[in-house]
């Protein structure tokens, strides 16, 4: 009998040891102070920027020998889901990046943003480009990257065919017709992944110039069955019916669409400036610029393109190392470090006095100051189900549905999700 009891006790002990072993591992992971150095954690989604960030961090640690920075990187599609929990716990993400729009709203209501309003380094950023990180007059996050979510076009091809950047919807159609006559697909549209959520912005920017349009949609003041959205869907239908976008566009992913532009099979890529470096990588002879279709007459056009100030840097209000975290953001916002980041990642930044060195960045830098762009409207949809409904209506139309029917189906979902 004694033997039996001792075996039961041993089994229970083994289970307890396993469980306590798990607990020990979790504690050691969350430990952040190592010797005389304070370790801060930088959480973001830009895995492709790891190499240059490693270099910048090495420089930072050289200047600040008492601070060590470790990075935690999640893929962008998992970032929204994972970041929230990590940030609340406080041990990960002393410095973190946030998307604008619904994630910023959610994190803001969870109270994880430290107010950066009084910090000197805020003045290192272009004040016109950082309003998206503000709430109730407080600067909660500082957008770092500046992306233009509008088609990239093959500039050399346009010049060769004597084409000019169109200033109206009729000019845009004439341009597409010329490209088709020359055996070139006007627009490579990655409908299987990011195409609808990127291209919708430039397609609607002048059809609905009111920047509050999606706020009004969510509050019930506006409807997707109203002219601004039905017209946008009709414009998408026209692109599909006239062959301005490639056949089977909803089955094409971004890699395949990029390949079409890199091989000069297509003239425009309906994604954004963040793909320019990759396109140059695929075909170094390409000369690229940006253009957004103007879907109205020239006199009615209010915007020339779309911008998104994103990768919003913030300090976690739950962190115990806020001062060190702020030092790191200050370091990232210094023009020489920002220039290094910009040139090695092929991104425009919201930081002032950045020295762009690569051809594609230099050639398109005029979009920052000289062109009237509008903040990406999609990011102003704060309800994910409403956003899905809006995007689904585009897919519906490209799949052959009537624009008004697609708008009605999407509006039904918007109504179901009204808060």
């Amino acid at each position: 009998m004694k033997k039996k009891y001792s075996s039961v006790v041993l089994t229970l002990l083994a289970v307890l040891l396993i469980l306590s072993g798990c607990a020990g591992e979790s504690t050691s992971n969350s430990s952040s102070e190592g010797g005389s150095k304070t370790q801060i954690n930088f959480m973001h989604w830009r895995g492709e920027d790891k190499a240059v960030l490693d270099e910048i961090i090495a420089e930072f640690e050289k200047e600040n020998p008492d601070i060590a920075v470790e990075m935690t990187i999640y893929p962008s599609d998992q970032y929204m889901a994972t970041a929230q929990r990590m940030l609340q716990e406080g041990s990960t993400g002393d410095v973190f990046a946030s998307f604008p729009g619904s994630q910023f709203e959610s994190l803001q209501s969870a109270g994880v943003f430290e107010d950066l309003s009084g910090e000197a380094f805020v003045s290192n950023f272009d004040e016109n480009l950082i309003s998206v990180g503000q709430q109730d007059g407080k600067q909660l996050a500082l957008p770092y990257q500046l992306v233009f979510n509008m088609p990239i076009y093959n500039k050399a091809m346009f010049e060769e065919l004597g084409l000019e950047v169109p200033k109206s919807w009729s000019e845009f159609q004439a341009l597409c017709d010329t490209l088709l006559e020359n055996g070139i697909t006007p627009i490579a549209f990655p409908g299987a992944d990011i195409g609808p959520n990127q291209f919708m912005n430039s397609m609607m920017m002048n059809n609905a110039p009111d920047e509050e349009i999606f706020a009004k949609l969510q509050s019930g003041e506006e409807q997707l069955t109203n002219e601004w959205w039905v017209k946008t869907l009709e414009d998408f239908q026209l692109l599909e019916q006239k062959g301005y976008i490639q056949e089977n566009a909803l089955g094409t992913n971004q890699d395949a669409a990029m390949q079409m532009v890199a091989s000069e099979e297509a003239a425009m890529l309906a994604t954004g400036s963040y793909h320019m470096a990759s396109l140059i990588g695929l075909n170094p002879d390409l000369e690229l610029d940006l253009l957004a279709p103007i879907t109205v007459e020239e006199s009615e056009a209010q915007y020339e393109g779309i911008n998104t100030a994103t990768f919003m840097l913030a300090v976690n209000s739950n962190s115990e190392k806020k001062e060190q975290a702020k030092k790191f953001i200050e370091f990232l916002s210094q023009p020489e470090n920002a220039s290094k980041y910009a040139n090695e990642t092929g991104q425009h930044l919201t930081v002032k006095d950045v020295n762009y060195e690569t051809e594609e960045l230099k050639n398109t830098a005029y979009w920052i100051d000289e062109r009237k762009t509008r903040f990406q409207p999609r990011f102003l949809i704060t309800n994910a189900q409403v956003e899905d409904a809006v995007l689904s209506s585009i897919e519906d139309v490209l799949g052959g549905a009537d624009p008004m029917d697609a708008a009605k189906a999407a509006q039904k979902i918007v109504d179901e999700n009204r808060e």
Partner: protein
Amino acid sequence: MKISKSIYLFFIPGFILYSIFFIYPTLSALFYSFTNWDGFSPSFQFVGLDNYSRAFTGDSIFIKSIGNNLQFMLVVVILQTMVALAFALIVLKNTKTTIFLRALYFFPTILSSVSVAFIWSFIYDPSLGILNQLLELAGLGFLAQNWLGNADMAIYSLAITQVWFHAGQMLIIFVAGLQAIPQDLYEVAKIEGASKWQTFRKVTWPLLAPSATIVVAYTTIQSFKAFDLVFAMTRGGPNNSTEIIATYIYEVAFRGFQFGYASAISVIFMVIIAIITFLQFKALRSDRISY
């Protein structure tokens, strides 16, 4: 023989683990399904049955996702069971060739679902994909499709990928079941002059019922849980045509930050799987025969 009461103590470790990893999360989901918790705020309100009523009366995407899931499940269960059984009958005998073939058919099962999703997304690509190119080469270009981009076709394309991915696993279960059938029953059937079809219908299939029950039940559950494949290949699109319950739960919880509502859908999801599995077990158990 009298069993000592102390033997029940051996259940405790398993029960503790089961409680932590199954009972507690299930009860948590049930609890939160009656709240409007957003997943991270410290406070929330009880909303009674509002989330359940919303799911059935005010959420057309959820209803659509149930329909998509049932469609996906039916295609996968029928096709996967048939394919696995057919291949199991082919590779039943233990020869070098059949052992090699079994390993070959089982191979997709050991791949990660994300790899499978990438491979099949490439195969299905309408312009660069190998499937349309092969159809063109075979003179069957008229069958070429926008496999994942066509809202009417996408769910079937995903179902075929799921069958390719898991049929090998089911084949092994069928092979084990077939090899357990006593050979003398086949000899008797032969002596009695039974045709091959009669032998299959009267001997093989009834005695294979326990294996078939496992295969059908497991395939059904797999079809409902095909989150990774669907998420990586279509993310529920185009136009929600491949949105299944599991991907919709993710959307609602992790993009919409409506954990309370997502929990309610999860509870409904659990009940749907339980009912379908129960009905299948009941239907297939009635086919069981022992000689």
